[in-house]
């Protein structure tokens, strides 16, 4: 085997190469090319090369918003032939994605025809069917590209030029986001709301030292084209401070009650990059494998732009439990990993929110500076010509004499360039090209007007170029104009993560009134909604309820307080008061099953609020059968959203009252028959949480306890 140098093996020319050397070399070529020129976006315009080439190719090909749509195949062919020597499928996929309003928050291509749906089995029609042109917003990406705003480079075959970056007059990297897998690294940037990102960019223009936390005042979180809910702020802080992390997205689902008391879950928005079809199939799978109980049927009732997935539940199913299982086991809740990697000066860099925007602002300063320089040069050239024409008009008789006296055009030009006029060559040429109608009086005035205009323009541009604060003001003005023209409301709502401990920091601890009706409708109202009236006032409507419903529980508490809901079955559920949806004073409220994992026909008998589970406090339970139990309140201090046993009940017995006591109060118990008993609670020894309690009054079959009250020891 050859060791070194060239070896003549018969006829072949053979050089040896060590396998690791060839591997390293080839791998490095591939990896670096994919990283720097294929899979990662430029931080300035947020585009990968293929996207940039499609937009530029369509722009050059005249597929602009004011022209008719043309076949995607022609755009793809154009882009492939001139700029992007790769597969047509890859180009068409990239083009179609930019036209999908469910993929891009702000589509850059205006498509006509079937561009598919979020369902992975529903792909766009073939490119010979679909048509496309640039969307108006894409013109803001390309805007002013003809004014030398960005550098260009020769294309792969040297036949054309292509821009290495687009002017990107809005922060596309954050606005539309991007996904890409390179070698050894990948990027995943979620889409954002245009208004919010532009506001943040404006803030960076004014405050170049802005921190990610400052900018989070504007950027509330990703804004996905498919809406849905974003859970919790804790994840967001990490994402925007470091550039990596993950956020939880959850479908919008509501538990509805049918006329016959049956329940169903209706999903109206699903997380980004998943589909109703995928979720529906997954649920069906889970039901078939008996991994999920309580689902009777799944129906996809989506149509057009409306998403609607209906999950019918079995009669005995606990809707909240089923919903939580769906969140856990299907794409109805999904984690979106963020890794904001983009190319800065050709090198991949992990960008936090502030870095991403400051790269963008730097690019805009560059673009507007170059545009101003270009415009200044154009204006100066024109002003020079106009000045020559005006001077010629002032001395038109002498000029004509010179021209008439010249042998040919070249001689005439030379004479004009000589004494006494000393016109420049450009001026002389224009004077010779001047039409006779320029001699009219009004034409002269027009030229003078143009000159004044040009001089003003030159002054303006010189001022912008000389003063960076003026330049920044121009950028700001133009960004705001784009925001006002193209901005829209956020689609993804940022809500509190039930498991997010930082939630309380973000909620005002205001006083609220919680109202629960007999039929289980609950709402929270700010206490301000009930203004004080004099004694004997008429009062105001506290809730508009359906027929036969009435307010059963009313409790004033504070937003941060825990509310313990005790049910007739002896179970307890805990939530924070702020988790109850705030409603108008007159609203009916939400069904309690949306908040608590209540079982079929389970009723709430008591609501206790507490902030701290203070020491020495007890809960005193009374059942229909006259059994009482006393338990330390602290026994109930655990996360009880899915419910927990509060008291063990005998068969047929039910919980009727729960009161808070100090440990040495007197208890009054009243039976349905009107019999009352008073005893010191010292007579009842404290017991654990899941115990049955002791006899509270001599119960006879006909008398059942129905009320209980306490007399605090201090008032005895």
């Amino acid at each position, binding site marked *: 085997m050859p060791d070194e140098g060239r070896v003549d093996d018969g006829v072949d020319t053979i050089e040896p190469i060590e396998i690791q050397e060839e591997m390293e070399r080839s*791998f490095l070529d591939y990896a670096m090319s994919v990283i720097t020129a294929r899979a990662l976006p430029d931080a300035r315009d947020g585009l990968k090369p293929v996207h940039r080439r499609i937009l530029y190719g369509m722009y050059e090909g005249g597929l602009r918003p004011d022209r008719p749509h043309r076949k995607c195949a022609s755009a793809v062919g154009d882009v492939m032939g001139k700029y992007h020597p790769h597969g047509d499928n890859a180009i068409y996929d990239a083009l179609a994605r930019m036209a999908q309003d469910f993929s891009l928050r702000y589509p850059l291509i205006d498509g006509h025809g079937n561009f598919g749906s979020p369902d992975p089995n529903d792909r766009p029609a073939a490119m010979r069917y679909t048509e496309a042109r640039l969307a108006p917003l894409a013109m803001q990406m390309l805007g002013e590209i003809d004014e030398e705003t960005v550098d260009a480079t020769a294309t792969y075959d040297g036949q054309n030029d292509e821009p290495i970056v687009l002017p990107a007059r809005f922060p596309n990297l954050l606005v539309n986001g991007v996904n890409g897998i390179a070698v050894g690294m990948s990027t995943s940037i979620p889409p954002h709301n245009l208004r919010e990102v532009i506001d943040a960019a404006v803030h960076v223009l004014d405050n170049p030292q802005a921190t990610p936390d400052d900018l989070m005042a504007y950027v509330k979180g990703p804004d996905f084209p498919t809406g849905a809910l974003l859970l919790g702020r804790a994840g967001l802080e990490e994402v925007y401070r470091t550039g990596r992390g993950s956020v939880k997205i959850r479908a919008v689902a509501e538990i509805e009650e049918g006329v016959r008391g049956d329940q169903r879950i209706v999903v109206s928005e699903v997380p980004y990059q998943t589909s109703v079809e995928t979720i529906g199939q997954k649920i069906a799978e889970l039901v078939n494998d008996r991994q999920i109980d309580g689902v009777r049927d799944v129906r996809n009732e989506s149509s057009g732009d409306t998403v609607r997935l209906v999950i019918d539940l079995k009669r005995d199913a606990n809707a909240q439990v089923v919903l939580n299982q769906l969140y856990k086991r299907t794409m109805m809740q999904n984690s979106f990993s963020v890794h904001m990697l983009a190319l800065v000066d050709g090198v991949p860099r992990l960008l936090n929110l502030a870095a991403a925007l400051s790269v963008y602002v730097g690019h805009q300063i560059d673009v507007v500076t170059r545009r101003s320089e270009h415009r200044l040069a154009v204006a100066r050239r024109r002003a020079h010509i106009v000045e020559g024409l005006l001077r010629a008009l002032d001395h038109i008789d002498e000029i004509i004499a010179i021209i008439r006296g010249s042998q040919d055009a070249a001689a005439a030009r030379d004479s004009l360039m000589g004494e006494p006029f000393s016109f420049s060559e450009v001026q002389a040429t224009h004077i010779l090209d001047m039409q006779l109608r320029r001699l009219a009086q009004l034409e002269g005035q027009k030229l003078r007007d143009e000159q004044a205009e040009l001089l003003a323009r030159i002054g303006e541009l010189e001022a912008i170029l000389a003063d960076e604060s003026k330049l920044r003001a121009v950028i700001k003005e133009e960004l705001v104009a784009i925001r006002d023209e193209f901005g829209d409301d956020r689609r993804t709502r940022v809500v509190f993560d039930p498991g997010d401990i930082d939630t309380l920091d973000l909620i005002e601890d205001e006083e609220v009134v919680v109202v629960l009706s007999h039929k289980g409708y609950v709402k929270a109202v700010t206490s301000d909604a009930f203004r004080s009236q004099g004694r004997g006032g008429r009062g105001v409507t506290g809730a508009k309820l359906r027929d036969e419903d009435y307010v059963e529980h009313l409790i004033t508490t504070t937003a941060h307080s825990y509310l313990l809901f005790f049910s007739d079955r002896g179970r307890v559920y805990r939530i924070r008061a702020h988790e109850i949806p705030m409603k108008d004073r007159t609203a009916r409220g939400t069904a309690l099953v949306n908040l608590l994992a209540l079982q079929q026909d389970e009723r709430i008998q008591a609501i206790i609020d507490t902030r701290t589970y203070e020491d020495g406090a007890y809960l005193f339970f009374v059942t229909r059968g006259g059994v009482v139990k006393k338990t330390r309140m602290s026994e109930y201090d655990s996360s009880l959203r899915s419910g927990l046993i509060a008291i063990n009940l005998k068969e047929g017995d039910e919980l009727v009252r729960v009161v808070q006591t100090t440990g040495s109060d007197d208890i009054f118990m009243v039976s349905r028959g009107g019999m009352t008993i008073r005893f010191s609670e010292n007579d009842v020894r404290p017991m654990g949480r899941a115990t049955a309690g002791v006899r509270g009054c001599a119960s006879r079959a006909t008398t059942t306890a129905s009320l209980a009250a306490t007399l605090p020891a201090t008032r005895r």
Partner: protein
Amino acid sequence: MLRNEEIQTLITAIGAGVAEDFDISKARYHKVVLMADADIDGSHIRTLLLTFFYRQLPELVKSGYVYIAQPPLFRADIGKERRYVKDEAELRRIEAENEGRKIEVNRFKGLGEMDWQELGHTTMAPESRSLLQVSVEDAAIADQVFSTLMGDDVEARRTFIQGNAKDVRFLDI
């Protein structure tokens, strides 16, 4: 991976079995030439094929039966003379030698861009081709390179890329 149809065909064609069953004496060819496009995707395919050979048919590589074809990257027309150029360094040398003359350069994106006579002449015909013979000098180093580049450890791969980013030969579009 071994269920892949192309890989199956490859193993059958070589005829010496695979992995533990491999028997070098049964190899039907003593020159297995890898021929991929002269662009970065070609480089990628080459790394994948070399990994396959090294992991599954190591004896074939160690015996020096595996070669790499070197299709030209450029075609340079200097007046009436046509030259095929292997890399950018050679192209620059030719440009320097022929200063003042007009050189029309055409960059090959793939093997499919050449017609059969052209491909035969530049890459395949034994009289005019130039091959690289793959050798394994130090199995331990080779093993380590394969683990880093093709293994599951993304971190090691990234470190390698970052550490060697400057040595890259050419960047493709």
